[in-house]
């Protein structure tokens, strides 16, 4: 290799290495477990106080909403087990019974989830297809 090529290779390698380093540290510092309700309940002793993300369906009749619309308790299910979620914050418009939600937060000592993020399935453009599909199952 000529001196010039060495320079270019070094420059490129530094960039590539930096990108990989950023990805590596990014993953180790920010990643959270992503569980279904059953998985979370099975593991809840080991992940106490760690960040988790759970998806499930809102159990009908379980929604206990504060009047100000800024606090809500509800249960989510993966049709095997149920999990109680406490959530504080703006409640998305789409939030209601029987919809799929993703919640993020930490598990408390009682095994309930204190959520700081509540995401509802977006106004899916392809919602109709999904409904059809779930009906079939």
């Amino acid at each position, binding site marked *: 290799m000529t001196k*010039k*090529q060495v*320079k*270019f290779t070094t*420059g*490129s390698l530094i*960039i*590539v290495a*930096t*990108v990989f380093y*950023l*990805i590596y*540290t*990014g*993953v180790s*510092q*920010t*990643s*959270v*477990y*992503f*569980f279904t309700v059953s998985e979370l309940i099975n593991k809840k002793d080991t992940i106490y106080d760690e960040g988790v*993300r759970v*998806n499930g369906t809102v159990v009908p009749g379980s929604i206990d909403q504060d*009047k*100000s*619309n*800024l606090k809500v308790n509800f249960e989510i299910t993966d049709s095997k087990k149920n999990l109680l979620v406490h959530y504080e914050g*703006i*409640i*998305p*418009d*789409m*939030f*209601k019974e029987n919809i*799929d939600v*993703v919640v*993020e937060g930490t598990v408390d000592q009682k095994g309930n989830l204190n959520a700081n993020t509540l*995401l*509802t*399935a*977006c*106004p*899916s*453009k*392809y*919602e*109709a*297809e*999904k409904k059809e*599909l779930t009906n079939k199952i």
Partner: protein
Amino acid sequence: MTTIGHFSLLIAFALSLYIIIAYWVAAKSENEYLKASCENSVYALTGLIVLSSAALFYAFVNHDFSIAYVAHYSNRDLSLFYTISAFWAGQKGSLLLWSLVLSFFSSIVSIQNRHKNRELIPYVMIVLHVILAFFIFLMNFSTNPFEKSFETPQDGSGLNPMLQNPAMMFHPPTLYLGYVGFSVPFAFAMAALITGKLSDVWIRTTRKWTILSWFFLGMGNLLGAQWAYVELGWGGYWAWDPVENASFMPWLVGTAYLHSVMIQEKKDMLKVWNMALILLTFTLTIFGTFITRSGLIQSVHAFGETTLGYYFLYFLFVTIAFSTYYVIKRLPLLRSNNELDSFVSRESSFLFNNLLLVGIAFATFWGTLFPLISEAVKGVKITVGPPFYNQVNVPIGLALLFLMGLCPLISWRKATLANLKKNFLLPFSTAAIAGAALYPSVGEGHFMAWLTFTFSIFVLLTIVVEFYRGTRARSQTTGETPFTSFFTLIAKNKRRYGGHIIHIGVVLMFIGIAGSSSYVTEVQQTVKKGESISIKNYKLTYQGLNEARPNPSQISVIANLNVEKNGKLVWEAHPQRDFYPGTRQQPSSEVDIRSTLKEDLYVILAAHDDNAATFKILINPLAKWLWIGGVILGFGTLICMWPDMREKQRMMAKYSTEKTSKKQEVPV
């Protein structure tokens, strides 16, 4: 009408297969009659898809609810504007729209190249029609837009109110124009690989297609962001959701391609790299469609786990297999004839810019697929969210921004120290001083945002210097007034100065993103009538509620707030909530935004009852610059795209000499 639509889709499928086979035969046998037949078939195919689209369109406008798709996505109350947009509100219609755009593009390519690129065109058309045939196949045999309802309902289910927003009218078609547009340079690249004609002809031919697709893809993303900002009511516009990432990745790689092809044009280098970038861009558009349609990755956009996604997966594998095979096969022909002159040259800054762009794309790809990767490797699903993307992509983005300022200061081939000093000193020192002055007010605790502003000043200054130097040089040599020189300068070098204008737009977007993501102030409060909420120097006083009934199926509850800034009444905010009694639709919030160049005041009505209401109020500094940057970017693109006679003549001259003396290298 529906029968016509249905049948023209079937015939279109057969015709697309004919075009693929016949073009192949024609190319091998040099049969001009067959080529002409193929060309006509291409136009006929476009006609058939237009006919199907017209049929679906007709069904929407006439509320023909016997078609399941129409019944799912519209109802009688829907305004004409949104009835039209309902066409692509769902999966089936979007496939049809995709095919429509692609068939139009094929016809345009065919017309543009009637008298040139004759060896490439059959293969270009084959590739385009393989893609098209795939989409038409899906519509015929998997998700037919003309499928009948089980029983025809009296009224349709209506369009989700959240999709009833002007941005949603334009966001999907714009995005598709970008997605589909990249098929054209991809098809040319494949044709070049297949035929072995690997000079830069295919790149030059598709330059405008590339810019246009890149522009539409970027705008599609931006419109999506705008929609999220005004409609979703969480105060932000980008959440690093898989669906967003899916269209962001091809845009990034497309941006890298757009820059690196200039090196090939100028220096006949980086051929393999360019080939890889355009193949990757197209692959990423298909990949994006796959992840959004397969339900493989958990997304808030829950597109639904349809089997359709897996067709895209197969298609993806086929694309990757074919393109990799041909790149390897043609590797000897793709060797560069030159090498980079100097470490500090414009070429090398392009190379590093490419690595950074691809780096962001890779980080985004890794983050998006991380749950799958970790599940496969460790057996646990681990996910990364916005903090990951911010932590990784912000530093890379900053390096990119800095390079954007550095690049025009460095000359081609080799920059001398004197040359660097001369160009560098003024923008760099001014930016350093401005940055230092800004630090006390904005830097504390927001290092990255502060760095963004400082770099932005630097980049803007280098661009201003570029314009100034060019104008001065021109007016000195031609004797024109500086004012005229400024415009003729741009007109005579559209690519170069259009590019600079695009960069100005990008810098403004950087500023908008840094401001609105780093310095957000947020208040959430329940107030009774007459009570006030204070946020920074604003005071919002709740005046009460109004009710409105814009159409029979909708009730709107509108809150009135008087907004004072520094004690002066400046605005009345009317955030509202819309209810849809008698339908299955959930209420939707309509935020109200007072947008100024300095900051956005963003007001959400979270809840209300007879005597009190809860509001969430945000101040997003500099948010407007994101959209302004987008408009300037569009303007710069227009200048780049504007037909250029001089460029055309230069090309003609170049290729006519090439024909006469094929082996001679044309110096650039």
